[in-house]
């Protein structure tokens, strides 16, 4: 029963999720609207709590077992708790019951967002440019005909998307655009179709109970 019940639920709700995309019948559309606006939203809220609980559990375990880089888990737990308390009781702009200002020092959610999250997020992404430059220098070698073609296409696109490309030749931006519109689309479409078939097959396997890894491995039936 422990395994059969979830399988029945997945089958029933999997089918109920597909039908509204095929049939415009008012009863089916009404049921779908109920499922989405009432049931799924409640489940999503519970999933959020479950996710946060799981995150805390993983990191407390990491600290207990002194696993690699366990010190960083303290950073996560402390910032998680501090921002949660400030967010829940201090309000977005310091308008809650918890004081979020000591003298001229403010620490409401809005201030934390602008002065911690935004700079940290921007810094992380900015570092990417340096790693990409270093990786491109090391990996981009014209070792074969295919690699040479890739390298040439990369140079054309890199120059074509810049104002400089237009100064070199007015045809360069158009050629770069053609590379993106034609060979790129052909390759992307092939990947997309392959991924779509893969997703369809996986979804069918889960709905029909052939794929059961999501049930987890522990416990007997």
């Amino acid at each position: 029963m422990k395994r059969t019940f979830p399988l029945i639920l997945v089958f029933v709700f999997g089918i109920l999720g597909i039908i509204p995309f095929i049939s415009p019948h008012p009863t089916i559309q009404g049921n779908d609207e109920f499922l989405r606006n009432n049931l799924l939203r409640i489940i999503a809220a519970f999933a959020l709590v479950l996710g946060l609980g799981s995150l805390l559990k993983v990191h407390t375990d990491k600290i207990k077992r002194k696993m690699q880089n366990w010190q960083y888990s303290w950073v996560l737990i402390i910032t998680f708790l501090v921002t949660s308390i400030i967010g829940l009781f201090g309000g977005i702009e310091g308008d809650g019951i918890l004081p979020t200002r000591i003298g001229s020092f403010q620490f409401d959610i809005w201030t934390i967002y602008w002065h911690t999250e935004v700079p940290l997020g921007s810094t992380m992404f900015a570092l990417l440019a340096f790693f990409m430059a270093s990786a491109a220098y090391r990996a981009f070698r014209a070792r074969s005909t295919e690699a040479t073609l890739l390298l040439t296409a990369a140079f054309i696109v890199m120059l074509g998307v810049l104002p400089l490309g237009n100064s070199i030749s007015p045809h360069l931006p158009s050629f770069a655009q053609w590379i993106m519109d034609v060979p790129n689309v052909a390759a992307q479409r092939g990947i997309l179709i392959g991924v779509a078939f893969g997703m369809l097959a996986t979804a069918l396997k889960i709905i029909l109970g052939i794929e059961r890894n999501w049930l987890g491995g522990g416990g007997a039936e």
Partner: protein
Amino acid sequence: MKIVDSLSRIDRRIIYLMLAIVVIFPLIFRSPLSVRVMPPVEKLYYAIDEIPDDKALILNYEIDPQSQPELDPMGFAVIRHAFQRRIKVLIMCLYVQPLGLAQNALTQITNEFNSVAQTNADSIIYGRDYVYLGWVVSPLLVMLGMGESITNVYKVDYYGNKTDTLPLMAKIKNYNNVGLLVSISSGDPPKWWVEYAQNRFGLRVGAGVTAVSGAEFYPYLQTGQFSGLMVGMKGAAEYEEMVEEKLGIKIRRRASEALSSLTYAHLVLIAFIIIGNIGFFIKRRQK
């Protein structure tokens, strides 16, 4: 032999330093560059421009701090375009992170417009000209739910007002009253809008994406599922160019300013790749 070796083994710190120099200096000594507007951006501009008076533009502002430098100029340019043309705008987010950036963009742009407005009709007024819907859980439910009733999904707006009390929301009920949705994002949301809102409700969709992810969105443009597409800093600069040229809005163009950095960074990258390949070919020949 030593020189050949050093050509293909340049210390990564030298690469980092060179890149930092060419990125930082043009940002300090700003000089906006003009760009040639390419068809994907031009299409998006006209798709927004042609939204009828009785329909609204939904701007899915999915810009997080990580992609802010690249995508924020797109959001700013699209909002300025819509406000200048007096197109009604609904702004919403599918995730929490972009909420602050969207509010910042709205505050800044409404201030720009209202500081030069002479009359109430000229001004950009909340609830009449635009509504900031904010965020509700979860993306798929929002996309499908808004097709039936927007006020049912967003019962209150970002500021806590009941949406069904706002004058604009009395006219904009669901996707039937929406001329176009523009999703500006560093992830997959533009595709989701096509999969769920366009396939099921026929919503027209446009997109603004980062340069890194740009290649995977072109198939949607070719099929016409996207009404237009902005890719990366260059796409943002092209849209800024259109807004300045067609609407006469002369204001700081952040994406166009950043193009100098981008140009020099690309040239440095190309130079290093060429140097690496010269070393590689000499070594191969010697072997």
